[in-house]
């Protein structure tokens, strides 16, 4: 290799000097000869999309860029610090648990939406799903008298069915998931409204509310559920084949299919997951409000999308982390909580929420740019 070439190479992959290859004692002689030139080629890539490269791996990156990458976590820390000094009540165990309980349903939905976005899909039926599930669970408990555990199972089954219908439209018929789930969401809420004739169905059997208002180890059940959902999502997406396949299918569906991933099954799994998580949200809602309501969670899909986008997920699929979404959800929760603690006028609260959102995405875009420089 000429000096020129290796200098060129070193400029792009500094941690991997050209000498590296010489140090090997290859274990597979048959392929050993396929080698050293490949590392020194045009690092900007020829085939793929023109993503930033090169500079992403060099030393400079480890300063402002890393900070910007941590954006949403920093925003969360900054808000916490601000409210901590601004209100003596903020940093108390009770208040923090309140924040957790307040974002439980949004968080559960956001976990599902994150998985869907990683798979390159969107599920906008979640609001209707919550309404229908809450109505069905209440009707099953009150009118059929089937008992709460069975009602919960029925509620989750509603989520599964919605997930399968979405799968049929998106995978079977081939409709873009934004359009398919937008339309299905209207239908589902119509069904919920018809089931109770527009009325809220209050629970008189309080097993579900009692369960959800319980505080095992001093932590509300809904916070436990939130934590469990995020833990499970993180484990599945990071450590299981299913999660790896979801990332693969989202990043390049055709490549995943050709690599032997059963992509239809993956999509079905994703829509069933978002459906079941929304149904879980509906069950939590039923418990915490002691009632099922066909008007519940109106527009919830867009609130959830806001939280997920705040976490900085890519819209193209194949990337995103549930832990960032959790941070996004908590930013919204902390903001609502802190502004209320400080008795900020509710119209200004709305402005503040919007402003934080704009700020977060601007910082995210600036970070993206610095990386692409």
């Amino acid at each position, binding site marked *: 290799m000429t000096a020129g070439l290796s200098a060129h*190479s070193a400029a*792009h*992959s500094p*941690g*991997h000097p*050209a000498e*590296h*290859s010489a140090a*090997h004692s*290859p*274990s*597979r002689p*048959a*392929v*050993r*000869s*396929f*080698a*050293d*030139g*490949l*590392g*020194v*080629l*045009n*690092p*900007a*890539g*020829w*085939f*793929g*999309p023109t*993503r930033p*490269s*090169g500079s*992403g*791996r060099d030393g400079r990156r480890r300063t402002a860029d890393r900070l910007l990458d941590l954006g949403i976590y920093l925003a969360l820390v900054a808000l916490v610090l601000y409210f901590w000094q601004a209100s003596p009540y903020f940093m108390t165990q009770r208040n923090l648990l309140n924040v957790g309980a307040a974002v439980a349903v949004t968080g559960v939905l956001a976990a599902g939406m994150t998985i869907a976005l990683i798979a390159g899909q969107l599920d906008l039926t979640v609001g209707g799903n919550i309404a229908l599930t809450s109505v069905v669970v209440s009707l099953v408990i009150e009118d059929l008298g089937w008992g709460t555990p069975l009602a919960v199972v029925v509620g989750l089954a509603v989520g599964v069915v919605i997930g399968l219908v979405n799968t049929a439209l998106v995978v079977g018929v081939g409709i873009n998931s934004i359009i398919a789930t937008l339309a299905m969401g209207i239908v589902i809420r119509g069904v919920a409204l018809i089931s109770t004739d527009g009325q809220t169905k209050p629970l008189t059997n309080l097993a579900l509310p009692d369960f959800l208002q319980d505080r095992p180890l001093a932590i509300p059940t809904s916070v436990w559920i939130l934590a469990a959902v995020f833990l499970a999502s993180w*484990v599945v997406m990071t*450590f*299981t*084949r299913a999660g*790896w*396949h979801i*990332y*693969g299918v*989202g*990043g*390049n*569906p*055709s*490549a*995943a*299919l*050709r*690599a*032997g*991933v*059963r992509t239809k099954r993956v999509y079905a799994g994703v829509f069933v997951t978002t459906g079941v998580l929304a149904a879980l949200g509906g069950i939590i809602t039923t418990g915490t409000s002691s009632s099922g309501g066909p008007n519940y969670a109106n527009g919830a899909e867009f609130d959830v999308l806001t939280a997920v986008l705040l976490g900085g997920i*890519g819209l193209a699929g*194949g990337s995103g982390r549930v832990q960032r979404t959790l941070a996004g959800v908590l930013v919204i929760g902390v903001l609502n909580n802190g502004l209320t603690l400080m008795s900020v006028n509710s119209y200004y609260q709305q402005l503040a929420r919007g402003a934080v959102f704009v700020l977060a995405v601007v910082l995210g875009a600036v970070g993206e740019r610095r990386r692409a420089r």
Partner: protein
Amino acid sequence: MTETTTAPLLSAQGVGKLFGHVRALRDVSFDLHAGEVLAVLGDNGAGKSTLIKALSGVYDLTEGRLRVRGEDVSFGKPADATARGIATVYQDLALVDTRDVAANLFLGREFRRGPFVDRRRMYREAERILDGFTIKLPSVRVPIYLLSGGQRQAVAIARVLVGGADIVIMDEPTAALGVQESERVLRLVRDLRDAGKAVILISHNLQQVWQTADRIMVMHLGRVAGIRRRADSTVEEIVKLIVYGDPDTERDPDGAPDAGTGEAGAAPDRPDGGTAHDPVKDTDRRAAS
């Protein structure tokens, strides 16, 4: 050269493929033996990509049958072909840009340990395999989008080695590569052959084919125009097969009216069978699936 009298590893018999009313392949038959490189040549639209997609389980056949190691097979999905020991390097590489090298190498066949993926083993194995390539990758944990084209190509080819396949299909593996890199890929092809694998190589570069192939199959308008042992053929014959689908036809003289901008001393306008001619050069579109 390494052709044997044993049963073929892969055998296609009367294979045909219809897209609606477009007949992309008809009556394609050939055998592929262990330890040989079969090059597939043909002009744009000749059906090469369709053929390899059929062999890889991306398309199902409308006619004919495939046998692998003497058994009749029918591929409903790519995973079926993989299970039969067929590995394909697609021209678009078929990598997931946002995932790291190891995740791409093992996509669809991740190692597991109980219910979880065995990340450490995959990283270790990925390092081992790519170390075998002595390729300079920053790390097997780098996402594909940060890699150069050559590095990506290497990862795509390494996927073949992960599965332990013995039938390897490569669709224009050198189309995007420069001189030295192309050579290395071709050397890998020969190494695979020498390790006893059967390789199907699609290329538009006759010179590269000549360096590498044992047999050459030329396709023309969805049919097999001819199969030749490289050692028994000439470049001229192959070029004629590619262009006319027939080794004996002379070009129809009024195919294209002459513009009369005649340029003394310039190279001839048409392939004249000279060895200097690079007859076909092509880039496949992003593979449809």
